[in-house]
């Protein structure tokens, strides 16, 4: 069978198997994307009333537009559902495996198909493909851009490839925040690496069209940056400069003397903070043992890649510098630039923001596999042993992903709000008011956006539920103040965390309880009557 078809089928299996069951619950981001997509599809405006926006305002955040519009198309085909919401990213994630295989083929790597297999099964990409993460779309367009750029370099005059490349790279910037950093730097690296090939091409034939394409994508972006907080707000919200523990050490212009000004200035301190974050990504434990954060610290987990990938990556790494000059330079660029966007953000070792790094590892995999075959005459035995290890590792990943991860982290994934929303909508006529709390959690305190879950599962508008005076609905977002509310609302239903009710609470008023997957109580349904 065609190798590309096999890669695609494997990628589809890893992404579409029980798609709506794992991750265990719809996250806040997913419902927010779903609601915005539905509003766009039905009315042409988002939930804030903006006509076909280029940045979707959410609560305290702006979402890049590509994911929302793709979800709207998915709704047009399948109707609004959890599957239809997760479908576009899962499909694009599967296609990314094909694109990476094609890049490896274009770079003339012997076992090019191995890059596709790597992406098809690697936990780093599989998980984020299953949960509507825009980073997957960004990576797909970045990969397409890279593929067509190399195709353009390899062709004599097919400038169509350059136009596709520029369009895809630009779309990548529109698809996810971290590509706003990664793509410009990668583009400069590509120009440097392939400068001789670029110079040899007849510039008159393509420069004007290329500038037009760039302008088409860049001008709205610049306009958005200048006129709205959509771009700057996100950068400010995630920057490591928000870390109070670090910023408190900065002098902010108040130096005690020349020595401090020269040897301990803020530029130096910022550089030191950033460099620590950068080097921290080159951590074998993050890569092969614990990086996906599916389990709490100290618990056995899984790296962004399988532990079984380690020997292949090590072999690939050892042969990286023996590749042709431009391939070698491209690999080095992807190696050092890949984690860069993530290093500017506040979190340490963030697998989602560093997803662009996966390009390097995907291209390293076929090099490592080729070297594994060369290492020994009895390479069949080596490969068979490695395959057994990999299968075992995949089984372990399945266990972690489908049993341990949901069990431990059902609360951060907002587990319960779907049932809460459905119950509230089905039973709202039995009460004068239904109140749902936005605060929940058993061991930790979480805040959610129940109005978006209500909008998603009940087909309402999210802001209908945030105004207690609204006559269109009787379901509202409000934490219980039991001592006051029990008298103020004579026929109401409160849905909230157990700790939101007094300690001496009359438990006979509880008509239903929900539980997190670790068995702890998540929500009580309490009647006032």
């Amino acid at each position, binding site marked *: 069978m065609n190798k590309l078809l096999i890669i695609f089928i494997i990628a589809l299996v890893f992404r579409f198997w029980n798609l709506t069951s794992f991750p265990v619950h719809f996250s806040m981001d997913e419902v927010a994307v779903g609601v915005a997509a539905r509003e766009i599809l039905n009315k042409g405006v988002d939930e804030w009333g903006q006509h076909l926006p280029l940045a979707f305002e959410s609560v305290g955040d702006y979402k890049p537009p590509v994911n929302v519009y793709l979800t709207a198309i998915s709704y047009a085909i399948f109707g609004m559902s959890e599957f239809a919401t997760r479908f576009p990213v899962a499909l694009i994630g599967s296609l990314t495996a094909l694109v990476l295989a094609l890049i490896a083929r274009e770079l003339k790597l012997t076992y090019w198909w191995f890059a596709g297999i790597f992406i098809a099964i690697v936990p780093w990409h599989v998980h984020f493909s299953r949960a509507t993460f825009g980073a997957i779309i960004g990576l797909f367009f970045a990969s397409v851009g890279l593929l067509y750029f190399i195709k353009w370099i390899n062709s004599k005059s097919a400038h169509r490839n350059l136009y596709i490349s520029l369009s895809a790279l630009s779309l990548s910037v529109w698809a996810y925040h971290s590509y706003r950093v990664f793509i410009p730097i990668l583009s400069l690296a590509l120009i440097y690496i392939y400068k001789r090939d670029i110079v040899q091409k007849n510039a008159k034939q393509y420069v004007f069209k290329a500038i037009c394409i760039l302008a088409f994508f860049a001008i709205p972006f610049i306009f958005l940056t200048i006129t709205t907080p959509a771009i700057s707000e996100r950068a400010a919200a995630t920057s490591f400069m928000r870390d109070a523990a670090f910023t408190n050490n900065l002098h902010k212009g108040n130096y005690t003397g020349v020595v401090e000004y020269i040897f301990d200035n803020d530029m*130096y301190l910022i550089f*030191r903070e950033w*460099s620590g974050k950068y*080097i921290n990504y*080159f951590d074998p434990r993050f890569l092969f043992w614990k990086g996906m954060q599916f389990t709490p610290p100290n618990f056995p987990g899984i790296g962004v890649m399988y532990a079984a990938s380690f020997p292949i990556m090590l072999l690939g790494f*050892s042969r990286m510098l023996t590749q042709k000059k431009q391939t070698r330079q491209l690999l080095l660029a992807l190696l*050092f630039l890949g984690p860069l966007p993530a290093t500017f953000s506040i979190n340490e070792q963030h697998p989602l923001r560093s997803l662009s790094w996966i390009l390097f590892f995907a291209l390293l995999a076929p090099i490592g596999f080729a070297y594994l075959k060369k290492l020994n005459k009895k390479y069949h035995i080596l490969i068979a042993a490695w395959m057994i290890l990999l299968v075992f590792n995949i089984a372990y990943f399945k266990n972690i992903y489908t*049993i341990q991860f949901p*069990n431990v982290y059902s609360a951060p994934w907002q587990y319960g709000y779907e049932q809460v929303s459905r119950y509230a909508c089905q039973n709202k006529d039995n009460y004068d008011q239904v109140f749902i709390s936005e605060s929940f959690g058993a061991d930790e305190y979480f805040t959610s956006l129940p109005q978006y879950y209500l909008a998603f599962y009940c087909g309402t508008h999210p802001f209908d539920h945030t105004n207690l005076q609204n006559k269109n609905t009787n379901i509202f977002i409000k934490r219980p103040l039991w001592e006051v509310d029990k008298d103020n609302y004579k026929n109401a239903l409160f849905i909230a965390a157990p700790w939101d009710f007094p300690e001496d609470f009359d438990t006979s008023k509880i008509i239903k309880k929900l539980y997190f997957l670790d068995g702890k109580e998540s929500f009580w349904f309490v009647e006032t009557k």
Partner: protein
Amino acid sequence: MINQIFTSPYMQAVEYMRFISGSRIFYNKLLPLLNAFVDAIQFARPHRFFYESLPPITHTVELVAVILFPFFIIGCSKLLSNINYRLVIILMILLVAAFIFPMIELITTIILVAIYYKIALTHFPRKHRKLLLIYIAFIVVREIVI
């Protein structure tokens, strides 16, 4: 060391996961041993030698290291391409030994620092070495005056 592994908080977490998944052999025996092995390798992670404060060397190392880090990575790749089994075996023995016997951690650290920086400096471009020296001087002076 084995007793330490099997009574650690990690092992308690393993026991919990075994209870959930029901996989006794893997979660009870294999996974803790693998984790111990990863801990041993973790001892040599670049972040430790190129950024974190090391007791014997202090954080003087850290900024020199950031500049040298890419050349260390490139140097490692070159070293691996002519696989020097003896060096790899010595390193692995040192790492495992440092993990088992904390008293030799200091010696192992110094040996690893020497190896790491030798690799990085070897692959640093010759024509920019003056700049590197100026930079190192800056960091050393900084350590003295701050």
